[in-house]
């Protein structure tokens, strides 16, 4: 590692760059670039139409600035909208054809893609810059009729499914960044769980930004048919660079009758150095639609990276008796900024939602919870419980809470609670008097503070999340 890297480097062990030959296009954005991306991916015509429609709408929009974050203007013409590690053949026959450097990168990130490693019990789709480089366990999943592949592959192999669901939850003109994504998205994961199938293993996507001056615009679409269920996990890292890189993804989840989709994120994008230089802008639109009766969508996120996190994983509770959940831990340190939360839109009868959000703000960071709970007049018997706690570590940080609660039906019961406080001096003292050093004591207390969220993560990721938080706090406490 170069000498110039500071203490952030110690806490961000994923900051390396992999030297791979890449197929990269010119910087800038125009209709030709979009056509080029579409042709490189051999997409069906409807997708190009979708992209162009989104692009034309995006051109007329003004970049939104209402979030409680500050960032310099983004030059959308200085971004490369496509970068793929070479020899990315149009279609990879097997993982052995992937550049060994790329495979080594994922090994180093702790994501084994090799066939011999399939015992790990999780099927992984690995996205390197703009393209998916490999998906594991495909055959096992295929036996159950489950489709788990890169988005590009899905567009070629299952165009009918993609066409009917793409943009059905997050339309191309939903918001500025979602429109940009709709225009230039390069890859992502596609999951289809057919009727009555319980997915036998956790599915996972690992996103890696490698190339410089690129943005990552992936698109994930998960469809669970009647009675199906799936647990999906995403992780992400990026090299350390002084420039800011934009990550504007869109995730759409659809749950039909009695289906369950659980979506977990452990986000560890490069957050910039301790003075806020560089880092990823994580401007993501994530939304799920509980379309059917008794369906359930659950979001769990551990947001520990990115210079700016600006996202609201949401659930539209359309089906009667459907359930939406949001569990979040957002940790910000150094100069990181986070404006994150959720939206629960209750449309159906007896719909229920739970929001548990834990924010930890350290040093000079800014951590905001922003959420919306909307009970529409037709949502008879709806129920919401929200709890948003913030913990402040250091006297220059900021913790904000902006909960919007809109209730239009008197049979609804809505509760919102929030607390903000610093780590209890008494608790710290107690642990220190028992021989724990300050760092370990803080780490223990923070873990306790976040426990409600961590316990909702799949086991391996729960362990990972705890470790990630400890690592982040190491440089902030003491």
């Amino acid at each position, binding site marked *: 590692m170069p000498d110039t890297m500071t203490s952030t480097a110690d806490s961000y062990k994923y900051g390396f760059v992999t030297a791979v030959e890449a197929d990269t296009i010119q910087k800038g954005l125009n209709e030709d670039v979009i056509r080029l991306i579409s042709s490189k991916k051999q997409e069906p015509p409807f997708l190009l139409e979708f992209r162009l429609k989104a692009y034309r709408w995006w051109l007329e929009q003004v970049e939104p600035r209402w979030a409680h974050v500050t960032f310099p203007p983004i030059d959308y013409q200085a971004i490369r909208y496509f970068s793929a590690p070479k020899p990315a053949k149009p279609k990879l026959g097997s993982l052995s054809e992937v550049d060994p450097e790329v495979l080594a990168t994922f090994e180093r990130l702790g994501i084994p893609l090799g066939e011999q490693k399939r015992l790990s019990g999780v099927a992984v789709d690995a996205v390197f810059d703009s393209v998916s480089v490999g998906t594991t366990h495909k055959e096992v999943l295929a036996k159950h009729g489950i489709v788990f592949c890169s988005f590009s592959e899905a567009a070629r192999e299952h165009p009918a499914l993609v066409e009917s669901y793409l943009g059905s939850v997050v339309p191309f003109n939903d918001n500025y960044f979602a429109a940009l994504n709709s225009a230039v998205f390069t890859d992502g994961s596609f999951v289809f769980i057919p009727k009555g199938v319980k997915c036998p293993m956790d599915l996972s996507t690992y996103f890696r930004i490698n190339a410089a001056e690129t943005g990552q615009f992936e698109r994930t679409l998960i469809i669970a048919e009647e009675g199906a269920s799936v647990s999906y996990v995403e992780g992400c890292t990026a090299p350390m660079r002084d420039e800011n890189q934009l990550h504007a993804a869109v995730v759409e989840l659809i749950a039909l009758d009695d289906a369950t989709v659980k979506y977990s994120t452990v986000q560890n994008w490069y957050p910039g150095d301790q003075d806020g230089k560089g880092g990823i802008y994580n401007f993501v639109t994530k939304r799920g639609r509980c379309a059917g009766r008794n369906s359930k969508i659950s979001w769990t996120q551990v947001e520990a990276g990115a210079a700016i996190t600006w996202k609201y994983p949401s659930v539209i509770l359309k089906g009667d008796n459907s359930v939406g959940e949001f569990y979040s831990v957002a940790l910000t340190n150094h100069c990181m900024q986070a404006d994150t939360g959720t939206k629960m839109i209750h449309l159906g009868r007896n719909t229920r939602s739970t929001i548990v959000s834990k924010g930890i703000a350290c040093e000079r960071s800014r951590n905001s919870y922003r959420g919306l709970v909307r009970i529409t007049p037709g949502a008879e018997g709806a129920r919401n419980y929200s709890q948003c706690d913030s913990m402040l570590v250091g006297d220059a940080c900021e913790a904000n809470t902006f909960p919007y*609660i*809109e209730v239009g039906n008197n049979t609804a019961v809505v509760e919102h609670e929030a607390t903000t406080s610093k780590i209890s001096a008494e608790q710290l003292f107690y642990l220190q008097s028992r021989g724990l050093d300050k760092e370990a004591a803080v780490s223990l207390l923070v873990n306790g503070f976040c426990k409600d969220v961590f316990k909702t993560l799949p086991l391996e990721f729960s362990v990972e999340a705890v470790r990630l938080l400890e690592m982040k706090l190491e440089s902030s406490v003491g």
Partner: protein
Amino acid sequence: MNAVVTRLAVPDGYAGLLAAVLRDGAGRGEPEWLATRRHGAFDRLRAMGFPTTRAEDWKYTNIRSLLDATFTLPRREPVPEVKSLIPHHLEDENELIFVDGCYAPEHSRFEPESGLHVVSLEDGLRNGDGEALRQRLAESLPGDDSPFVCLNAALSGCGVYVRVDRGVTVSKRIHLLFLTTGLQPGVMVSPRVVVDVGAGAQVRLAQSHIGRSGAAAFTNVVTDLHVGDNANVFYTKVQSEAPEAYHCSFVRSRQAASSVVTLLDFTIGAKLARNDLYAGLDGEGAELHLDGLYAVRGRQLVDHHTTVDHRVPRGLSRQIYKGILNDSARVVFNGKVLVRPGAKLTDGYQINQNLLLSRSATVNTKPQLEIANDDVKCTHGATIGQINEDQVFYLQSRGIAKDAAVAMLSRAFVEDVLFLVHDKPLQESLRALLATYFGK
């Protein structure tokens, strides 16, 4: 996409109102600086315009109907009798009565106390208080950029200046009563209340806005409280305007060190009511109790926007806003608690609770915390729900009619806010006023 309309032009008629106010002021010998101030405020208002629902602070409140209405300025007319207008008439207090936007000394009663100065704005500007008042009005305060505060500054005609000297405890409650009789349809009343409480002083103030049914008026009031060190202020605002009326209010309180301020905002009337409140804890160890009670029905809309601003260490704030909604009423609550970077050891608490009695009532609540210091304890909460069926059933099984049971449980729901009013006669009168909501 078409350009989004984010502001609305100031209605044409308002310029005419300003001209009339200036003409009238010149006739009565209003000082030159006041006319300049009016012009300045009106220019600011014209530059910013009125907000649409695209503005974050007006997201749920559309004021187009207010801007479409035509208003006139108050005319001084003799009114033989006003007592019948006052539903919660209180004995043993000093009452300053304003009828349709004009001070009515003939109906007011005031026993002078030493150390207490109370003058109508008009008199204050003419006599010895003119300079102190000029200074107070020249101070810039949070909320000066609100369009309705600008409108008030441009058009304010009536008002009161209350000054309590250092160390004085005022024995009687001071009650400012703004009555709308309906004799002047479409009257726009813009009162300005300025209260100066010296160090260590103590005073109880009530400000009531009462309208007779059928009185489609627009009240746009601004109240500024300047509270000195160790002072103790109880301030209650009661809004029981006519069901056709518009009501905009901005209360601003600035507290010096170790002062205690207790504010109560009681809202039951008006078609559209917007209550802005700013409470700045400017001195160390200041304590604020901020309570709200609202009971609305029909197509009423009440919009509360409160800001509690902890600027220095060791501040304490307690905020409880509770309300009942029936029919198609709508309530907006946006409670902001700010803790500034240096305000360590702040203890903040805020809760907003709503009881929905009908299917079509709507609540939009946003309890908001903005905290920039780690050594604080802040909690907020919000709940929205309906009456517990089991409790209604229990009361019915004891022979109480359903309506009465619902009224009883609703009254109990807001009783804890009334309970916080330590001034017993005032508490009783508020309870009586609330009873009218339940049709008694």
